[in-house]
């Protein structure tokens, strides 16, 4: 059995156990290991050249039954019954449909109930499970690590490699423990934890590592919250982030369409229980975060590590010691049109984006709706709410969240990546400022010249009400909430 847990082995981390269980062969003389891939997620943007490579070499997809595709990155979020207006987007979608038909790959197209952001679809179908390896031509594949899976983004050449061989040659990662102890205060969420982690270790701090999120604050999170955290591991430079599977994980997976059943379920759970990091296992690096001290967090710059507590001010680059960080901060402030010392809460926004693979699951929408319920959005602020999948959209509508959102004055859209990366028409205009629940505040990511502040769904909601960067705490101060 691959899922071998011999007592004679030295103590291992979660990541090492999953890695070892997928070793097809161990690399020698500096060669990488060959790792088996349990689940390959495919979307329209990073796959066309990979399928083309297979076709040219006359190779089939080795395991169509371990492969699934969805359309998400450049699909429109309104008028989805009409042909896609942008010709190049349409070509890419049509190419995916043709490739999936030719190679026998399951595809959930626009309009299908299982269509949506690839990292929302996998967990929702029960395909994402503890202890498996998951890859996708998308860096936010780290999301699936929330289940105790080893999940990471790959480039298009690797997509082709997995399609052809169901394996990847890889060098083992180093391991880093991120321990978050304590209790989050009301109004502080998983998003604030991960933004604080990235601000602490930097956008390069996790390079070469798999991060394992541990501690009481992580254990207390729901699967949706854990996915938000693992999702942004790549923003700290780490290809993967993981959380040990527990009751919360098993309860989430059980009963989903592709979850194991009967004896298989019992066997699977028995194995999943062995995955947690052994006592005495050592990590190559360790980081500690005090959950009690965390406040709602927001980014002020153009990389996700440039973040501070919302109650803070825009930092002064002069006070940054590292010359590269200082130069990056100076350029960021210029791009963001912000002056050092400005209180974050004084910053007015033009738009609020609620969505993306980081924060578009049902709990995210519930959190957002709980703050805006019965209120009206600030004048002049455009508020766009984009569910992560068609199924999340239906679930939200069954709960009446769509009504709360539209009564508030926000746009209620169809599922997709949308304004997270502006490949479809959902973009910021030059100079527009946005509070966004997405994962990257890079220059121009949400539209050329657009300015992004990364926030949690709760902060997005409070900001949409007040028109300036705000948290639910500010609403309470005004006596508007509760």
């Amino acid at each position, binding site marked *: 059995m691959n899922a071998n847990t011999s007592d004679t082995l030295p103590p291992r981390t979660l990541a090492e156990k999953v890695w070892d269980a997928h070793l097809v062969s161990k690399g020698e003389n500096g060669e990488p290991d060959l790792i088996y891939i349990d689940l390959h997620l495919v979307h329209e943007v990073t796959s066309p050249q990979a399928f083309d490579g297979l076709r040219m070499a006359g190779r089939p997809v080795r395991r169509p039954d371990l492969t699934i595709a969805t359309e998400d990155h450049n699909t429109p979020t309104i008028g989805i019954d009409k042909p896609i207006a942008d010709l190049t987007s349409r070509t890419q979608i049509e190419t995916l449909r043709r490739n999936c038909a030719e190679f026998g790959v399951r595809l959930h197209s626009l309009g299908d109930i299982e269509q949506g952001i690839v990292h929302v679809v996998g967990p929702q179908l029960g395909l994402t499970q503890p202890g498996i390896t998951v890859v996708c*031509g998308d860096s936010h594949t780290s999301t699936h690590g929330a289940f105790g899976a080893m999940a990471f983004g790959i480039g298009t050449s690797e997509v082709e*490699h997995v399609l052809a061989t169901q394996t990847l040659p890889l060098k083992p990662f180093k391991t880093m423990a991120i321990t978050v102890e304590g209790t989050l205060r009301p109004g502080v969420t998983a998003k604030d934890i991960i933004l604080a982690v990235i601000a602490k270790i930097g956008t390069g701090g996790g390079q070469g590592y798999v991060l394992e999120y541990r501690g009481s604050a992580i254990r207390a999170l729901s699967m949706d919250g854990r996915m938000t955290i693992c999702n942004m591991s*790549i923003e700290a430079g*780490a290809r993967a982030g993981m959380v040990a599977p527990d009751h919360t994980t098993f309860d989430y997976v059980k009963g989903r369409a592709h979850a194991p059943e009967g004896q298989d379920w019992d066997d699977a759970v028995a194995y999943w229980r062995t995955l947690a990091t052994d006592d005495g296992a050592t990590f190559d690096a360790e980081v500690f975060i005090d959950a009690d001290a965390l406040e709602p967090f927001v980014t002020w710059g153009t*990389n996700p590590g440039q973040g501070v507590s919302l109650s803070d001010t825009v930092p002064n680059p002069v006070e940054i010691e590292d010359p590269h960080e200082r130069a990056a901060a100076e350029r960021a402030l210029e791009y963001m049109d912000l002056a050092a010392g400005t209180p974050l809460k004084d910053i007015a926004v033009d738009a609020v984006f609620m969505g993306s693979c980081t924060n578009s699951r049902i709990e995210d929408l519930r959190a957002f709706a709980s703050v805006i319920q019965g209120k009206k959005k600030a004048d002049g602020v455009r508020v766009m709410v984009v569910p992560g999948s068609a199924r999340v959209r239906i679930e939200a509508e069954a709960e009446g969240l769509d009504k709360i959102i539209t009564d508030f004055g926000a746009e209620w859209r169809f599922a997709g990546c949308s304004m997270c990366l502006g490949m479809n028409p959902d973009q910021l205009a030059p100079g527009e400022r946005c509070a966004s629940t997405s994962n990257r505040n890079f220059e121009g990511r949400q539209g050329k010249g657009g300015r992004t502040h990364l926030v949690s769904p709760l902060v997005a909601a409070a900001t949409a009400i007040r028109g300036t960067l705000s948290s639910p705490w500010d609403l309470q101060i005004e006596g508007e909430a509760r």
Partner: protein
Amino acid sequence: MQKFEKVTGIAVPFRRSNVDTDQIIPAVYLKRVTKTGFEDALFAGWRQDPEFVLNRPEYQGARILITGPDFGTGSSREHAVWALRDFGFDVVLSPRFGDIFRGNSGKQGLLAGEVAEPDVEALWAIIEAQPGIELTVDLVERKVTAGSLSVPFEIDDYTRWRLIEGLDDIGLTLRDADRIDRFEQTRESWRPRTLPVKQS
């Protein structure tokens, strides 16, 4: 893939750190279904600026890009590597790369070499004193030479070997496909399958 041993060419002093792949190629350019033709998309957000270093006449035809730390972070888009290749770059040197970008580079014949930060500064200084000077990047010896200065760069042994031999990963893996067959026979029945489709 072409065999790679040594490159001699003009080097660009790219004085920026934290250049993520969204900056290397913005998402709007990712809609093509081919692997070529991305040269116009490279650093598209900065190219309109006539003072942008790649627009300067002395660096036209450059083959080597020398950047600050954390180059190629963020999105997994291999288009970032294709755009650099299409523009004419064979080599990128930086004190530190995004992991996915570095992996993608090796698969497309782009040498991503890690050079210590003081050495990057020294190379920048030499190039800026003599813009258009040709540097030599020697993959066999793992060193960069600019005039009288020669500094080492790091690249892992396996990637170096594959670049030198011009080998394709899939071909390498399939040389011994039996080991994959053997592994698959031991996989547990409860591991997830996407087919047949099950309704929730």
